[in-house]
Every structure is written in structure tokens, then in C-alpha cells.
């Protein structure tokens, strides 16, 4: 086994493929240690007199016993088995994986931020609170909203928060509205959050050109509708140009309009949700504001609301005392929906988003939107013939192509994705949104260069050709990775969700 353990360079080689990369548990040897902690001092009372038998652990947890060297090699190599934005592009539609500036990491690591205790007196947190205050003002300006809560740890929690505020708003007016409308192209978190907030999700179909069907919408609108959740540009990368009509229609029946900020990247500085008529907005700072996504998290999903909804925000809210010139948390919020996070949300991520905001400034923020849309359209036209977009015309920051024309060669979207890996690219999002057959959803983001985009386009065009000439090549892909097409059915059938000793 040790030969495997030492097979570092093989991570980069054909060689590894024949060997299993060990689990940390498989490196364990009794008595080995990486830990280094002070002793309990002798003059402190003993465990036995302090903790009764029945509260003591019977069998110690079977954690691995490894040296620091083992630990470091294991996780260093594990990291080398992973793609990352620092390694290459992630043109995943709907994900907005842009480059994460390093300066933001240094900012978040400063002791004044990273070692701050969440229960410390406001007096001790003035710098942190001022930072949040400036960030709130800037995000309100960018969204056209009145106030923000930073408690939501991610977009989905922001949605949940927004929907509960929606509920509180209607209840406050003595109404019990039951339904929330979402387009059929909506992201899964939308309907899930709707259900979790105790509403019924009602889907409205898209028109053939990928937009909300106004008539269909009008039909379902009544005073039982609490609101509509929309991301604009929508998940197809198209701007809902009837947004004003939609807003009017919603407001006419007393419903609220919720903006899913996952696609905010494409309009920041160009158009504000508030000006489109939205009442509630969540932002995914880990998308638009470039914070590292850590292999699936953390994120930060601050929720912004218009003036009339402010009093329903989660408690506490941040306030500035002009007299004392100090910042502080106000817990006295009788109409609040309550708390949504143990503390103040993903503060460390908000520090990074703040550093990004201050680095870009107003012009930089607008250029983000411009170049995100520029990159998407450039890629769109470069692959148009090989992978026609599902909907015609200029797209915003992303677009949805279809691989269905390759079906006749027995090639699926997955095959395209896996082959792309061998050509050195991370694939786009596949099979989403569900409304498009064999969907390839592509979002290059603004931080990728034209060279990268042309390289990706060349690879995709080459693959379309290979689909005809050599479909098997695609079915066998990828050939360049530590593993190839893991069996997901098997994983779900024969459950192995944790290591267990043989």
C-alpha cells in the first residue's frame, strides 16, 4: 500500500489509473500522531471526578492516526486531483465561476476580521461593522433596494428568507396567500424554497422564445398569489424584456416580485432590480462578487428588500448612531421574521466581496456586466454551427446550446462534456435547464480571455466533428483523468456513504 501512498507524481500520469488513491483511514497506524496540544495541568481536577461514567465515551471514535507528514501529503495530492478556477476555466452555466482575486484572501485573513468573536460587544467590532455598513449601502445602490440582511449563508437561504418576508408582508395585511409562481426554467432552489416556506409552487411555461408567457401568467394571477420568483436575465440567458408588464401584473393583484440574483453578474451597473419593479432581491456574492466557492461552498446570499418590507427583515439589523458615530446591532425588531443564521451570516465571505467591490469601483462593476455578456456572445457565435443555441439572438451572460443534433451519431451531451475534459477544459452545465433537450448551458464569465474562449470553441467544434467521424472516442472519454465515468447508478444502489473498517 505504501507504494500507492507515495505515488505523488503519478497523480499527473497514466500510471495512477491502475492504483487506488488511499483514504486517510487507510494510512492510519496506531500510535502515530500529527496533533500537538498542551497537557492538562496536574493541579486541575481529574476527569473522573468531573464527568460521571455514564457521560463518558465508551468506544473512542476510529479517527485515523497519521503523522503531520502523512496528513500534508495526503491532502496536497488530493488537492492535485481537482480542477479549480486557479487551474482552468469553469464555463458552467448558471454558476458564474469567475476568477477569485487573491487580495480578498489576504483581507479576510486579517486578525481583526478572522479572529473576531461573533458575540463580542459592538464596541469591539466597529471596523467590521463599518465594513458591513458600506457594503450594505453599495449593494442597496446596485440593486435599487432599501435595506439588506447579511444573515443568509447562500442564495437558497436568501430565497427562504425572502419568501418568509413575503409571507409576513401578506399576513401583516391579514391575508393568507398560498401560491408562489415560478417559470418552468427556474433553478431547483426556487421551488424548494417555496415549499419550505409553506407555499405552493406553481410553474408557468416559457414561450417558444424562452421568456415568461405573459398570457399564461395573467391566467394564474389572482389574490391567492403571494409572489413571483424570477431571475432576469433568466436561466436561458435571455433578458425578460416584458419585465415591467410582469411587475405591473403582479402588483395589480397585490403580489410581490422576487429577484433571484444568481444572474446579477450580467446586469450590475446596467439595470437595477428595483427599477424593474422587484420588491425582494437576493445576491449570490460567491458568484457576482467573486468569492471562492470552496468546492461547493461557502457562499453568501444577502437579501435586500424595498422600503415597505424593511421591518420584516431578520433580526438583528445593522444601524449607525450618528450621535455616537458608532455602528451597532439592533435586536428590537417586533415585526421581524426572526433569525435565519446562528450569527451574522458568512462574514468572512462578505469581507472578500467587500474587497472585490472596493477594488472594482463603479466603472469596474459595469465593465463586469459588459464583458460577461461580451464573452458569452463571442463564444455563442463561435460554436453556433456546431451547437446551435436553443433560442435565437443575442444572449446575456450565458446561453443554452443543444447537442441534440449529435444524437443521430449516438452521441449525448455527456459524451461531449467528457471529451471536452480530454481536450483540457471543464465542461459546461449539461441537462439543465430541463426545458432544453440535450442542453449545454455555457457561461464563460468576464474574467476569461478571448484566447481561452477561442480554445474552448475550437475544442467544441472539434468534438462536433469527432461525433461524426469517431463517436467511440467520445464514448470512451475521458482518458486523461484519475477516474473515468464513475458508476452513479451503482453509487445510489449499493450505498457506501462512509468509510468502515474491513
Amino acid at each position, binding site marked *: 500500500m505504501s507504494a500507492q501512498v507515495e505515488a505523488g507524481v503519478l497523480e499527473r500520469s497514466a500510471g495512477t489509473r491502475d492504483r487506488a488513491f488511499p483514504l486517510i483511514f487507510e494510512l492510519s497506524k496506531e500510535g502515530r500522531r500529527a496533533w500537538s496540544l498542551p497537557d492538562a495541568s496536574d493541579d486541575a481536577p481529574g476527569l473522573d471526578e468531573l464527568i460521571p461514567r455514564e457521560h463518558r465515551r465508551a468506544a473512542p471514535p476510529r479517527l485515523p492516526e497519521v503523522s503531520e507528514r502523512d496528513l500534508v501529503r495526503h491532502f496536497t495530492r488530493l488537492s492535485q486531483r481537482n480542477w479549480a478556477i486557479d487551474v482552468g476555466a469553469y464555463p458552467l452555466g448558471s454558476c458564474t465561476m469567475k476568477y477569485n482575486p487573491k487580495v480578498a484572501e489576504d*483581507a479576510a485573513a486579517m486578525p481583526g476580521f478572522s479572529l473576531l468573536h461573533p458575540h463580542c460587544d459592538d464596541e469591539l467590532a466597529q471596523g467590521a461593522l463599518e465594513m458591513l455598513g458600506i457594503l450594505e449601502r453599495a449593494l442597496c445602490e446596485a440593486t435599487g433596494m432599501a435595506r439588506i440582511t447579511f444573515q443568509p449563508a447562500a442564495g437558497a437561504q436568501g430565497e427562504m428568507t425572502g419568501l418568509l418576508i413575503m409571507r409576513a408582508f401578506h399576513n401583516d395585511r391579514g391575508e393568507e396567500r398560498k401560491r408562489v409562481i415560478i417559470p418552468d426554467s427556474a433553478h431547483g432552489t426556487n421551488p424548494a424554497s417555496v415549499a419550505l416556506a409553506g407555499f405552493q409552487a406553481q410553474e408557468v411555461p416559457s414561450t417558444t422564445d424562452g421568456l415568461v408567457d405573459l398570457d399564461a401568467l395573467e391566467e394564474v394571477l389572482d389574490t391567492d398569489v403571494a409572489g413571483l420568483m424570477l431571475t432576469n436575465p433568466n436561466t436561458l440567458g435571455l433578458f425578460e424584456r416584458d419585465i415591467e408588464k410582469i411587475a405591473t401584473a403582479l402588483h395589480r393583484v397585490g403580489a410581490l416580485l422576487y429577484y433571484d440574483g444568481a444572474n446579477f453578474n450580467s446586469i450590475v451597473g446596467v439595470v437595477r432590480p428595483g427599477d424593474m419593479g422587484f420588491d425582494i432581491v437576493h445576491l449570490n456574492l460567491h458568484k457576482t462578487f467573486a468569492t471562492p466557492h470552496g468546492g461547493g461552498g461557502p457562499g453568501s446570499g444577502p437579501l435586500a428588500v424595498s422600503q415597505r418590507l424593511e421591518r420584516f427583515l431578520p433580526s438583528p439589523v445593522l444601524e449607525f448612531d450618528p450621535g455616537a458615530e458608532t455602528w451597532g446591532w439592533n435586536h428590537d425588531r417586533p415585526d421581524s421574521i426572526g433569525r435565519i443564521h446562528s450569527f451574522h451570516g458568512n462574514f468572512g465571505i462578505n469581507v472578500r466581496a467587500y474587497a472585490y467591490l472596493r477594488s472594482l469601483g463603479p466603472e469596474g462593476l459595469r465593465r463586469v456586466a459588459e464583458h460577461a455578456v461580451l464573452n458569452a456572445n463571442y463564444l455563442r457565435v463561435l460554436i453556433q454551427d456546431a451547437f446551435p443555441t436553443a433560442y435565437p439572438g*443575442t444572449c446575456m451572460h450565458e446561453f443554452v446550446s443543444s447537442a441534440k443534433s449529435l444524437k443521430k451519431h449516438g452521441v449525448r451531451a455527456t459524451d461531449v462534456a467528457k471529451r471536452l475534459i480530454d481536450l483540457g477544459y471543464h465542461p459546461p452545465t449539461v441537462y439543465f435547464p430541463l426545458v432544453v433537450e440535450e442542453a449545454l448551458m455555457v457561461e464563460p464569465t468576464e474574467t476569461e480571455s478571448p484566447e481561452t474562449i477561442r480554445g474552448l470553441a475550437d475544442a467544441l467544434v472539434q468534438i462536433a466533428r469527432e461525433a461524426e467521424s469517431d463517436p467511440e472516442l467520445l464514448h470512451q472519454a475521458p482518458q486523461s483523468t484519475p477516474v473515468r465515468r464513475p458508476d452513479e447508478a451503482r453509487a445510489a444502489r449499493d450505498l457506501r456513504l462512509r468509510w468502515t473498517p474491513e
Partner: protein
Amino acid sequence: MDFLPHTSDDVTEMLEAIGLPEVDALFDPIPGSVRLKRRLDVPPSLSEPELLSHMRDLASRSKGAGELACFAGGGAYDHHVPSAVRALASRAEFATSYTPYQPELSQGVLQAVFEFQSLICELFGMEVANASLYDGASALAEAVNLAVRATGRERVVVGSTVNPDYVAVLRTYSSGLGLQIDIVGHGSDGAVAWDEIDLSGTAAVVVGSPNVFGRLEEVAVAADRAHAAGGLCICVTDPTAMGVLRSPGEAGADVAVAEGHALGNPMSYGGPYVGLFATKLDLVRQVPGRIAGETLDADGRRAYVLTLQAREQHIRRAKATSNVCTNQTLMAIAAAVHLSWLGPQGLARLGEVCIRHTARAAARLSEIPGCTIRFEGPHFKEVVLETPVDAAKLIRGLARRGYLAGPPLGRWFPELSNCMLIAVTERRTEDEVAGLAEAIEKELAER
């Protein structure tokens, strides 16, 4: 400084290829009527050196555990973050990677998450853990939703000694679903008398141990009674105690949830933290959030993938077990590295030092005239110190003397407005405890 690679030549060239005259034309689909006609009114761009000076200035106006000896608790603790853990968890390949949708390019994150799940199961004596949730509070809320789905009941009985901010989040989460949350009070010993509570018709009993007062509770009793009543037992616990204290699994709990930041992640003013969630295998299809699983690849090699996705929002949509999508994977990876750094011996040492040094500190502090330890009985790493004065004011005074204590308990328990939490981690030295005691004495003398 923006981070855009485009030169002006690039832009021209690309616009030509697209067939548009100018950048603004890209936004033609947006009706002029809603467009922003002005520049955003946000602070101007800063160069990197200017930005760092500005951030340093802000940071210098926040005083954390770097400058104060931190005895503060209440859900966040000043534990040692090993240098190796920080170095490994911050590797760019982990930090700047996205959700592992393409397993071939994500074995690093997927295996690390699988190891995390395995470690958490070992810790809590459970059979399945997920890839993390937002924090301890949302983990509790998700556990309650699981119990509600599993039992078809809507009543939840929660001990008053569960961190009140967690309970607040639980209330918020459950408000939409209209669950009935019954809080049961604690005795003069700071623990709930679980054998005396009516649990009929409950979906779940929520017991905290160590509880918000740092005191251990009778999880086994709560679990037995919950099961007798046909409900589940959810235990809110502390991973750093698991080397010494009985695990929720050993005590019969069905779900263990906890705040996991202490495993390799700094206090960072309350986030990003990591919600730990583990339960029994028969409940796996009710588990919220992502789960990594082991399988074989096309060539028969061991491989890891995201599995049981039919539970999740992107497949099941409105019927999903939860709405969680982005979670706290990077913190989970840090926790996996930290637990591997500790091993069983290190975890036991950590627990022992916390318990014994907390007891010693409690003894010292209760020597202060007018001060007592409010609750008797076994504690883990924090105690409630009752003082003769308003705790919030006292804490402010202590901060000026270089000691961070609290939180004051008045906000959570009006009857405890003279009380505050004192937490003692492995990082606190004997001198610091002595210093804290003197600081309290001085503060009291001045009142």
C-alpha cells in the same frame, strides 16, 4: 482594479465576430425605460496597496482574539487552528474549485467530503452524514424538518437549554410550515428534567448536550422517552467533546447536529462556519443536502460521486428534502483535515484539557466575592458565572482590561441578566485565567 483580461483590440475583434457595433449594443434586449442612466454611486476603485491599507485600517478597529484573551463562548470558541490544517484547507485547488458536478475533475473534493462524512459519523456514533450545512442552527432546523417528514407529526419539544439563537432560527424556518415548537424549561441545575416531560405526539425531542450553559444533559433519557412516544431524538452537541464524552449515537439519539467551526476554522465573526449533520442509515433518504458516495469507475477503479441526488432540489425541486444547494464544503474539508490531525488521542486530549481547565477556572472565579458558578453538575468547556452586577456592563469593562468574556445571558434569559458565559479552551493559560479573575475583581471593586 478590475480583473478583466480584455484589451481594447480584444473587444473590437470580438464585437466584429458577434456582429455588433459597440459594447452597449449587447444590452439592446433591455428596455431603455428600466436601464440605469447614471454611474452606480459606490466608492471609487482602489489600487491593491490602497485597498490593503484600507482593509488593515478597518481590521485594526476590530479587536478579536488576537488582542484579547478570549474566554467568550455561546457557540463560537477560540480553539487552536493547526498550521497544517490552515495550509492544506487553503490550497487553491480546494478553495477555488466549484461544486463537483464532473467527478473526473473533482476526485479531490469528493474524496475529502467522503472522508469528512466518515469522520463525522465516527465522531457522533452515526451511520450517515451529509457534506455539510450552513451552520449549527440551520442544521437543527433541517433535522426537525427531517423528523417531521419521517414521523408525519408537527409537534417539536425543545429544551430551553438549547442555544436560544438556534431555537430562534428553528422558529423562523418552521414558521412557514406551521410547526408547533414547545419549549420545556430547565431546573436549578441548568438541565432539563427529561423524565418529567410530556412527549405525546412529538415528531422530535431536541436536547442540547453540552447545552448552552456548557452543562451535560441526560440525552439517553430524552432519547428513550422520545422513542417511547414514537418520536425521534435530535441531539445538539459539540464535536470537540467527542473524544471524552458519550456520543449522541451511544446515547441513542437519532440525529446529531452541531456547529463545526471549531474544527479548523477561525471565529471570523460567526461565519463561514459549518453545520454538522449525521443520522441513522434508515433515515438516509430524508437527509438534506449533498452526500458523497463511493463507487467504481468504468475501469473498475474506486471513485467518488455525489449520490442520492433524487433527494435534492435540482432533481426533486418542490419535493426536495431541503432547498440547500451551496453549502460549506471548504469548512468541511478543513474539519476533515483537523480531525485527521487530531486522531483519537488528540481529540481525547482536547476534550480533557477543556473539561479540566474549565473546572479549574470555575473554581478560581467562584472565589471572587459575590461571584458564583450558577449551575452545578458536569460541564464541558464553558460555565455560567453569576456576578453581583449587570453582566453586559461588566463584559465591556473586562474588554478594556484585555479579556473577552460572555455573551451576557440577559438577552436569552432575562432572569440571568447578571450572568455571563465563560469558556476555557485549550488555548487559555493558567496566567490568563488568573488575569481574568483579577480583572473581574478590579471591575467589581470600581462599582
